[in-house]
């Protein structure tokens, strides 16, 4: 054999084009793929180091109350003693959840828009509504890792740490459907709102600030309106604050709406919710309504693009 001449780049690999005869799985599979990629992106998987650090750092923070409860529970052996109770958990990590939504939502919908990759998605066998809903589903289910998951860990840890694990689990079994249901409602509400805001804020920084602002400005503004304006009608303003609504929803599901007293009106969000004196089942419904309205607007937004 003579010395091999270096083949011109490409020629040696060129085995000719082959068609594809295999299965084509259609719309639902395409959507599932989009959803999976979006969830992976949310946690920075397949992306750089920074998105990973950010996402997993926030997850870590969201687990902190659970971890603290378990450690204290291990050190201080006392039945029925919990540093943080399941009903309070989501309220405690509210800030972390909003930051997570703010940081991730813009990546999920803004990146495709900024790089104009949307045109490629829409030339695929999916509908534009599908795209919008897959993104909301991705953000909402990513939030499960920061809400329901730490609750589950805390529940399991508490049970294992109890003198009689089975008894403890049986006594507290009611908590599980409660923190799952209230957590899921929270996730879809935050997910829908986050994608909604991010799909209107073109720039990443602007999206981030808008999400934080809308959650955390509506909270004190509505709080002040309730406490300072001397009219019963202002109670309707509570529906404009997503954090009031979500807290009301969780409190209703845990049957933990507090008694109303003279300080309620000027108290924390949950006291104000109690003061408003709506039938308490409206809170989860209002929360889901927020999610539904946000989703509908997002869908409209994407129908109009490209």
């Amino acid at each position, binding site marked *: 054999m003579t010395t091999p001449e270096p083949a011109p*780049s*490409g020629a040696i*690999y*060129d085995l*000719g*084009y*082959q*068609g*594809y005869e*295999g*299965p*084509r*799985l*259609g*719309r639902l*599979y*395409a959507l599932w*793929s*989009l959803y999976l*990629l979006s969830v992976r992106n949310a946690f920075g998987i*397949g*992306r*750089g180091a920074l998105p990973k650090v950010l996402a997993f750092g926030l997850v870590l923070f969201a687990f902190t109350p659970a971890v603290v409860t378990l450690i204290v529970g291990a050190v201080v052996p006392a039945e029925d003693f919990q540093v943080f109770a399941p009903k309070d958990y989501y309220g405690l990590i509210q800030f972390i959840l909003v930051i997570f939504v703010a940081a991730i939502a813009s990546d999920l919908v803004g*990146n*495709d828009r900024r*790089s*104009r*990759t949307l*045109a*490629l*998605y*829409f*030339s*695929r*066998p*999916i*509908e534009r509504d599908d795209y919008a809903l897959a993104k909301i589903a991705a953000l909402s289910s990513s939030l499960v890792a920061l809400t329901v998951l730490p609750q589950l860990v805390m529940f399991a840890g508490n049970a294992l740490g109890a003198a009689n694990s089975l008894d403890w689990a049986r006594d507290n079994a009611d908590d599980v459907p409660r923190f799952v249901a209230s957590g899921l409602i929270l996730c879809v509400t935050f997910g829908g709102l986050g994608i909604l805001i991010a799909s209107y804020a073109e720039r990443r920084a602007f999206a981030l600030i808008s999400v934080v602002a809308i959650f955390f400005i509506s909270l004190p503004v509505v709080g002040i309106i309730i406490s300072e304006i001397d009219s019963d009608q202002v109670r309707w303003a509570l529906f404009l604050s997503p954090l009031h609504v979500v807290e009301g929803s969780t409190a209703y599901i845990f049957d933990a709406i507090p008694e109303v007293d003279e300080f309620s009106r000027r108290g924390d969000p949950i006291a104000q919710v109690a003061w408003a004196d709506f039938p308490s089942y409206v809170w989860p419904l209002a929360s889901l309504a927020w999610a539904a309205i946000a989703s509908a607007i997002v869908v409209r937004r994407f129908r109009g693009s*490209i």
Partner: protein
Amino acid sequence: MALIETAGLTKRYSAVTALDGLTLEVEPGIVGLVGPNGAGKSTLIKILLGLVGATSGSAEVLGLDAAREGLKVRERVGYMPEHDCLPPDQSATNFVIHMARMSGIPPSHARERAAEVLRHVGLFEERYRHVGGYSTGMKQRVKLAQALVHDPELLFLDEPTNGLDPQGRDEMLDLVARTGNEFGISIIMSSHLLSEIERVCDGLIVIESGALMRTGRIAELTDETAVLAVEVEWDADRLAALLTDRGLDVQALGRTVEVASAGGADGVHDTILDAVVTLELPLVRLERRRRTLEELFQPATETTAETPGDDA
């Protein structure tokens, strides 16, 4: 079966009519879509992809109604937009795999197909790097790869050579030609450069202001205005004068005399040969000259320029 069939296709936006009763039938092959900016090329492609509804009229792609069966159309069609459309923070490989899955290709096949098409468009080791660091030429290749990855029957390429240097342009056109000719994938390629269309396409659609100006095989279009080129060693002027005397439409260009031969009548050949013999000129060449597309459009452009008012 026709690749694409439209009938009275009209699209009006609030103030603009993008397509105005467009009726056309496109046969399989590589077809150029030509027209000035705003002629309705992009709107046509979007309607054919089922992304935009027509105001009236109908459009069928691969025998499917684009308006009602957009999903099925998009499963069998690939689209490469004119503009940038790649996420900078993903590798070409991952992105093309993802786009294959978005077209319904199962994961393991998606990986194979992505490797296959990236190799086909000429991306090798660099396909593992983030797209953000690619040159325009490499980006165009990835854009083509993602349009091909699900092995479509029809490809829409919107200005595939946009932004490329002459060499990149050549390579892209070769790729387009190979994709069409060797793999049997039909292609609709829009371009504003007729020379590109002429080089790779065998069919042509010309639209202007949303209406069809011309359509057909490029060979036929260039043939219909064919002229006879007569090259002689010297005295081309005298030959031109004699031919004019004998009632032919003649133009002398250096040593060549171009004779219009409408209808390709045999008499013209005889007249020319007769004249050459009479003048005792040494004949170098007598052949039909195909006109280039550019020449073909010369009169059309002039007519447009004369049209008063530009209300498009």
